[in-house]
């Protein structure tokens, strides 16, 4: 190799190592989370505080809970913040995550057209409300996207005692079989509309067709009070303990995916359950309404 060639190589090497060091010095964390945390605006308040305290920057990828968990399983991210407790515990059992930190909760509500043909108004029993919807065959829009909200909705339908139709899809991945189940009452495509899309789209579609749906309170407040043309749908059923919606943060296990930034993820999770972050969470107001309740202080 000529001296010139060696010189060029040397310069390239220095440049390469230089950029590498810059990357390594930055405390950047990749997190998959549910659309609700981002859409509610909480992360916009929380993450700047995090950076002030710890210097950690978080790259947020907002998806449904199913997709967020999948990102964690594939090692695409360092940490996940989701809301489907049973699936989170399973995620840890299978060795993908190290520990679930209980961060906060908000709640789900059942909403519908102001005319309320199924007569749910003032109800605080989710299961009874769903039974009424099925009995009157009132149009109900389901997320149907394997998200945390969809998981919760399915668990309520299962408690109604109605005959459920279930379809299980088995995905084979690295020799392990993973099941995805989809449960719904009879009437799919008729009165029960499963649209496979995000919460915002579900709300506008339900409003457009004057249908019932189940939503997290944050997205509802945004669409009801935060828009020039608000949706007409109103809250009809709330306050049932089964409608509580707990969020957990889980660092990805470095034994499963050695490339993840476990130390940073752990620092981030511990910061989220610290008194300081908990105050930020509980003080957060969306259009004057409290959305999230810190869970860590009570433990």
């Amino acid at each position: 190799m000529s001296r010139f060639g060696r010189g060029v190589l040397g310069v390239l090497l220095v440049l390469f190592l230089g950029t590498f060091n810059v990357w390594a010095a930055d405390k950047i964390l990749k997190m998959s989370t549910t659309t609700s945390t981002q859409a509610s605006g909480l992360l916009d308040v929380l993450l700047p505080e995090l950076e002030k305290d710890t210097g950690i920057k978080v790259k947020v990828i907002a998806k449904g809970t199913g997709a967020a968990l999948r990102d964690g399983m594939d090692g695409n991210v360092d940490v996940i913040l989701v809301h489907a407790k049973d699936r989170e515990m399973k995620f840890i059992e299978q060795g993908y995550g190290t520990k679930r930190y209980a961060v906060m909760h908000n709640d789900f509500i059942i909403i519908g057209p102001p005319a309320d043909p199924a007569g749910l108004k003032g109800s605080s029993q989710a299961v009874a409300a769903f039974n009424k919807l099925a009995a009157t065959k009132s149009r109900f829009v389901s997320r149907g996207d394997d998200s945390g909200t969809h998981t919760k909705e399915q668990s309520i339908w299962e408690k109604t005692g109605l005959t459920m139709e279930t379809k299980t899809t088995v995905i084979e991945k690295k020799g392990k079989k993973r099941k995805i189940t989809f449960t719904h009452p009879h009437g799919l495509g008729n009165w029960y509309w499963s649209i496979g899309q995000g919460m915002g789209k579900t709300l506008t579609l339900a409003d457009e067709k004057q249908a019932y749906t189940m939503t997290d309170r944050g997205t509802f407040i945004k669409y009801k009070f935060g828009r020039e043309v608000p949706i007409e749908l109103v809250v009809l059923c709330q306050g049932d303990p089964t409608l509580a919606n707990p969020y957990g943060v889980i660092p990805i296990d470095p034994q499963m995916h050695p490339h993840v930034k476990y130390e940073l993820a752990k620092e981030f999770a511990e910061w989220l359950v610290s008194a300081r972050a908990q105050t930020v969470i509980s003080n957060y107001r969306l259009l004057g309404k409290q959305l999230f309740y810190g869970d860590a202080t009570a433990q």
Partner: protein
Amino acid sequence: MDLLIDSFISAIGLVVSMDAEMVAIIGVSLKVSCVSTALASMIGVPLGFGIAFGRFAGKRMTITVLNTMLALPTVVIGLFVYAFISRRGIFGPLDLLYTQDAIIIGQVILIIPVIAAFTVAAISRIDERYRQTARTLGANRHQTAWVVFREARFGIVAAIVAAFGRVISEIGISMMLGGNIRGFTRTMTTAMALEYDKGSFVLAVALGIVLLGLSFGMNLLFHFFQGRVQSQ
């Protein structure tokens, strides 16, 4: 690579076993696409024929506008139709939004320019002497038109095949006007987008295989008809 290979193997299994849900989704796609192609042909072919055969002021401008409309994005059509058939829109009371009919309306608008423009091209390709010969042999205007139409028939069929290929693979209109409702307005393309969002790829890959197969078949047909045009 594991992800791709695993999904691909499971997907082949799904295609071979004719999974009920997959078949239902393909059924919705085919039904909607066939109806919209048929309706658009009934409008687009006479339109293209009229433009190509007629003599009127602004003919070249009309053809330019038609060719421009070939590039109409599906989301733009989706948006406009949405504004008309939304509950707060003019045709709101018809309750059309998020039905198969809504998708068909959007798709018809999408491919009328395709069919009309290709028909114009097919007819322009016919030698002017056909027309003159027919006239000298004593054919009237209608008979002359029929002769030209018969000569251009393969080109017109090719136009319809191309239009079908466009609607079966589009997603913007199906998603915005159909709403991706399972067992009702879920098409191959919207189902694929959904499965991606869920993080489960098998059904998406399976539908992708079927869609590619259909497109391949359509292209074979298209080239067959184009070959017939050129060999004339």
